[in-house]
């Protein structure tokens, strides 16, 4: 990390609390626009509940499509938080400081959004509760935990609760600063949330331990969540889904798309909140290098999935891969996925100059997520396109209709709105972490150069 700025504590507070304590006009405009899109999506969901799922493009067998793709995509994005925050905290990587909270917040909102899709997908949302939670105590009938679909809520609720708690615990010291800087209702709001945090040496010690302990506890949950999401597919006997490699393949794919989303978010935050002193090209260089490693790990598992599918010489598997890779329109989508999901981003990120170019990294990270959305789309939809035995009325091509487009748009708006409103209420970059970096930094003189150093316990 070469970009080291000397920033005194009051300036850190001024810079990072500017947006939570003062509301610019653009906030209302952007929040209003995003809110309108979310509102449209909510209306669409009401319509779906009212008239049924036939307004979607479903066919006889293709009923896991855009909604489930979106579910897997947003669960994937939610893995950014733990990947960046927990792993970087555990390894005490210095460049984590401005990145952790944005990543954790992205996790919470992406996961919350992901959770809505299986519910919407059921058509009658209110009935989902019967399947997931024990019900009907008088007759003693319970849901069947042998179904992989029941494992999902247990994993996602665990991850969502843990991530939200993680964000809150790390936020407490900054809430105390916001409390000391605010007046009126904001002062009362921050006072209640800060719970009287004073910054004693005991409280800081526990904060430091909390960061490491919670990271260590959430890390296995993060691995389990996307593994269990993959079981929704892999536990079925459906060609194209029934694969033992799915769990690690899903986890690493989630990290690839999630860390890319963090890069997108960091670039947008830097631009919107003028955080040039805090988010520097060095951070993008570090994220870029991390992404290079993750992308190749993802490619390895993707290749395994293809090889295992082809090498077995099973007719249904071969037909499915033929459909995914060589049949219109999947072939075009597969090429776009290969280009945007791996070839272009990785090819560009090999160059240091590009990794340090924030505009380039913004577009590259967006491109990765276009590719990764398509990856899930290609993974989920084609296997259901085969004609099933005993199905006589056959319309094999699923075509998304207007509700699907609105719901996809609405999901992006919901996550963006969530992160925006969070940034409006709370500092999106941890104040105390930045200040700690300032306290611990030093320079060593080695020969004729001065090298940045960090003092650690």
């Amino acid at each position, binding site marked *: 990390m070469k970009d080291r700025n000397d920033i*005194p*504590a*009051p300036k850190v*507070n001024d810079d990072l609390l500017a947006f939570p304590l003062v509301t610019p006009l653009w906030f209302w405009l952007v929040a209003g626009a995003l809110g309108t899109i979310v509102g449209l999506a909510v209306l669409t969901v009401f319509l779906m509940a009212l008239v049924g799922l036939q307004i979607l493009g479903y066919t006889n067998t293709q009923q896991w499509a855009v909604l489930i793709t979106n579910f897997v995509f947003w669960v994937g994005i939610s893995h950014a938080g733990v990947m960046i925050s927990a792993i970087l905290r555990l390894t005490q990587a210095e460049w984590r400081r401005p990145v952790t909270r944005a990543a954790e917040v992205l996790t919470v909102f992406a996961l919350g959004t992901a959770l809505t899709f299986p519910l919407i997908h059921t058509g009658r949302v209110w009935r989902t509760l019967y399947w997931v939670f*024990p019900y009907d105590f008088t007759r*003693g*009938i*319970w*849901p*069947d*935990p*042998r*179904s992989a679909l*029941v*494992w999902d809520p*247990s*994993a996602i*609720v*665990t991850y969502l*609760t*843990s991530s939200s*708690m993680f964000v*809150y*615990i790390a936020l*407490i*010291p900054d809430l105390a*600063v916001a409390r*000391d*800087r605010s007046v009126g209702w904001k002062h009362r709001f921050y006072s209640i949330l800060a*719970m*009287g*945090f*004073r*910054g*004693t*040496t*005991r*409280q*800081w*010690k*526990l*904060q*430091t*331990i*909390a960061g490491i*302990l*919670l990271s260590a*506890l*959430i890390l296995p*949950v993060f691995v*389990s969540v996307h593994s269990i999401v993959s079981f929704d597919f892999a536990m079925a006997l459906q060609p194209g889904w029934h694969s033992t490699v799915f769990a690690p393949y899903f986890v690493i794919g989630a990290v690839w798309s999630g860390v890319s989303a963090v890069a997108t978010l960091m670039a947008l935050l830097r631009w919107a909140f003028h955080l040039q002193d805090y988010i520097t090209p060095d951070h993008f260089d570090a994220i870029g290098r991390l992404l290079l490693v993750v992308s190749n790990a993802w490619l390895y598992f993707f290749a395994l999935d293809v090889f295992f599918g082809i090498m077995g010489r099973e007719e249904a598997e071969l037909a499915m891969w033929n459909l995914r890779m060589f049949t219109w329109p999947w072939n075009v989508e597969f090429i776009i996925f290969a280009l945007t999901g791996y070839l272009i981003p990785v090819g560009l990120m090999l160059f240091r100059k590009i990794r340090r170019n924030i505009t380039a990294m913004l577009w590259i990270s967006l491109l990765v997520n276009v590719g990764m959305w398509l990856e899930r789309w290609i993974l989920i939809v084609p296997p259901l396109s085969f004609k099933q035995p005993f199905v006589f009325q056959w319309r094999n091509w699923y075509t998304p209709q207007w509700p699907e487009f609105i719901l996809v748009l609405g999901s992006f708006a919901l996550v963006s709105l969530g992160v925006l409103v969070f940034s409006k209420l709370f500092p999106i970059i941890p*104040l*105390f972490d930045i*200040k*700690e970096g*300032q*306290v*611990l930094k030093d320079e060593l003189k080695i020969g004729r150069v001065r090298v940045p150093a960090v003092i*650690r*316990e």
Partner: protein
Amino acid sequence: MAAVATQALLGLFRDADSVAAALDRLRAANFAGHNLKVLTDTPYPEGAFGEDHEGHRLYVFPFIGATCGFSVGLLLTIGTQLAYPMVTGGKPVLSVPPIVHILYEGTMLGAILFTVLGIVFESRLPDLSGAPHDPRISEGYLGVLVTRTDGRRDVAERELRAAGAVDIITK
């Protein structure tokens, strides 16, 4: 007189060295270490101010939580299945993979929730003590809080000023 005896004092300092000096002086003046607290807006390395080591039991909380979560997971999987033993597709009523998944998630959720409770409890939050506080601490000043002056307020104030306190706040 009890209020006077326990009256708290907060000295504000600009740097860590002065805080360490203030703690040394206050201890030399027979103020007990557990009545001296350093307040900062950022974590400093442990022992930076020569403060007393304070123990905690945070590590116990995840184990208690994990045990509770494991028990709930057991109840949800084995308990509910035995309550209504329904054979589906020839599969055993008590199948190991689903039990493992839900037990695992329950255990982790319990451990994490109790860890969070432990952090709040061990941090002594919410703090309703009403001890003096100054917003300047959030702006980079460091505070030395003498929680019990035991009728020697003037001694504590003198030692804080001698160590370089820029301001003293009383409650």
